[in-house]
């Protein structure tokens, strides 16, 4: 594995290897000195064309805990905002000696372009590209879910896949890179996925995806899923007629207080809530649900660092061996 561009490229073996490596990294994160010398002398560039403080600091923490040198390159205020092309930016980073580029971009496929052209040799990590994919988010979701399921079952998480698990993903699937990455990764790991959304927020052709699709959240909850992943819904979508009003959206597809009350039913007693953040409280999720003990949101953030450490470690050590 030279790059991480899409979870579609991962075999079950690849995915489990990343998750198992992340378990080892998590152990480092629990130590008093949270640092490994693994990537000393290597340079990781966080190339962010889109604002995302959460993802950027997660990657930054991951690289630093592996002792890499980190350069944060925010496109705003740089030469990119003066019209520099992606090609020139990439060649500049190559000349500086970047070993890995973590790229966040509003254009789907921008990480692919970096990886597949001869502009740069560095390992490329997709940190979210347009409405395409966000592979490390899906990996941290899978990691969080795997740990939860292992805890419930009383079995070790290392080495496990997600066979038999059922995950419901709710919200704006059409515009969600998180949903795409999760559908491919979770199903690769053996989980069953159900997408729940208004029909306007499902991609054309979604019926060809390896998952179930429903317009009815209550029906999906009645199937006793192991996890419910709520996606952020941007209120602006209302203006483009994806749904009539935020109130109607919340009522039909939100995890409000009433719907969350069902989580006390016996068949949902072990069901957890995932959210990639940032949450829009009161729209797709109520504060009661978000702040409950079912919510894994902060665990997801913590696990994100371990998963990104694993990805950087695996990509950059693989690269070293080919040199």
């Amino acid at each position, binding site marked *: 594995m030279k790059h991480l561009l899409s979870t*579609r490229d991962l075999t079950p073996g690849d995915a489990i290897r990343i998750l198992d490596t992340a378990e080892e990294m998590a152990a480092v994160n629990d130590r008093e000195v949270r640092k490994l010398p693994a990537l000393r002398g290597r340079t990781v560039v966080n190339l962010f064309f889109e604002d995302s403080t959460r993802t950027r600091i997660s990657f930054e923490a991951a690289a630093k805990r592996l002792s890499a040198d980190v350069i944060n390159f925010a496109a705003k205020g740089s030469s990119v905002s003066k019209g520099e*092309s*992606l*090609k020139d930016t990439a060649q500049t980073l190559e000349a500086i000696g970047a070993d890995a580029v973590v790229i966040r*971009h*509003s*254009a*789907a*496929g*921008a990480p*692919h*372009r970096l990886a*597949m*052209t001869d502009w740069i040799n560095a390992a490329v990590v997709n940190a979210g*590209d*347009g*409405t*395409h*994919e966000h592979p490390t988010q899906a990996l941290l979701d899978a990691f969080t879910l795997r740990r939860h399921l292992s805890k419930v079952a009383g079995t070790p998480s290392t080495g496990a896949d997600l066979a038999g698990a059922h995950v419901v993903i709710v919200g704006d699937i059409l515009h969600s*890179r998180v949903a*795409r990455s999760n559908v491919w990764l979770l199903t690769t790991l053996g989980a069953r996925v159900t997408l729940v959304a208004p029909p306007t927020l499902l*991609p*054309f*052709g*979604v019926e*060809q*995806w390896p998952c179930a699709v429903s317009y009815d959240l209550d029906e999906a909850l009645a199937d006793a899923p192991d996890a419910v992943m709520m996606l952020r819904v941007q209120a602006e979508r209302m203006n483009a007629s994806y749904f009539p009003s935020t109130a109607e959206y919340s009522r039909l597809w939100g995890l409000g207080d009433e719907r969350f009350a069902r989580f006390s039913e016996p068949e949902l007693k072990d069901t957890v809530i995932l959210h990639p953040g940032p949450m829009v409280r009161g729209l797709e999720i109520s504060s009661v649900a978000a702040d409950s003990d079912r919510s894994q949101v902060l665990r997801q953030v913590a696990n994100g660092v371990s998963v990104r450490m694993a990805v950087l470690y695996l990509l950059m050590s693989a690269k070293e061996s080919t040199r």
Partner: protein
Amino acid sequence: MTASNASPEAAPSYLLRGAALYGGERADLLIEAGRIAAVGAIAAPAGARVVDADGLVALPGLVDVHTHLREPGREDAETVETGSRAAALGGYTAVHAMANSNPVADTAGVVEQVHSLGRRAGWVDVRPVGAVTVGLAGEQLAEIGAMADSAARVRMFSDDGMCVHDPVLMRRALEYVKAFDGVVAQHAQEPRLTAGAQMNEGAVSAVLGLPGWPAVAEESIIARDVLLAQHVGSRLHVCHVSTAGSVEIIRWAKSRGINVTAEVTPHHLWLTDELVRSYDPVYKVNPPLRTQDDVEALRTALADGTIDVVGTDHAPHPSEHKECEWAQAAMGMTGLETALSVVQHTMVESGLLDWRAVARAMSEVPAHIGRAGDQGRPLAEGEPANLVLVDPAARWVVNPSVQATKGRNSPFAGRELPGRVVATFFRGHPTVLDGALNEPYPQPAVVTR
């Protein structure tokens, strides 16, 4: 013709020995003074240059109904000179230069400039297409009459690149061009259904997360336009048809006797949206590459005549507009130097078309649609000597960096294609000989009317 009268005796004559006319019967062709002087078994006259055409197919010179020459305004992408050189190398003797230049070809002045540049270049007939609306803005009719009466004698009008989406304006345009025996060539794209669209809407766009360009955005405009053409009794040409649904609508319209012609590009006859998985913008084009089902339907439609012509939609772009992110990249592909080979590969070698039908779809009907009088004529005695010799047995690998077009954005780069243009005769003069550019046709730049 002022030009060809200048010095007919001085022009050398050519004897094309043993060409297969339209891929069939073999004959010699004698070219003298800009015309086909004789067809048959001919002894070489004194002084005639003999071209060995053994094994070559002779076709009337190709006519493109859809070319972007970029001049004036984007001379970094293409000029009339470079674009018409590419055309000659592709076997063309006439191209219709689309109006989306800068300034837009929406006045007699701009179309006369393009026409004049074409004559000065001398590689092919450059026939300017006039804009339907001022600035391609879709708000107000351009001076269609002035362009029709200009030295460029414009007969085809198109806002190509933009759709004439206002139904009233489209109706008026269809009606108005009747006064000049004109045709409206529509770029069928409902703008509201395609805002921000990046590729065909389908299974691939869903996975790639690129905003989709649904087939219905093309089909709904074509359906409306054929009904408008029927209502006002006018002539409609549909540019770059790309979907199976569009084919059905056009087939229906033709069965009702509606005066509509349709065009397909070489790339839509072959390539599909699966290529977009690479995110390489060389595959970004408008209308977008569709699915294999669409490709099959387009091939069938070209074979059965539902689609009348192949138009290249040759759209060169500077490399910086393609060496970037998909969403930022320009739409368009080069096509003049690969069109005939792609048609041979997709249509002739698949058994769907014979060379006779290729002549119809790439020369005769395009000339008729554009009212290019001395183009697309039969290979017969007394006819203008616009013709091409093709070696159908040749194989070559597309290398954009050695093409005559300035554009390096060929989606066929690296592919092996069949068929090579060996010679192109433009008004009796060889613009291409031995597969390479020869000399342009000598003629004055200034046209006297």
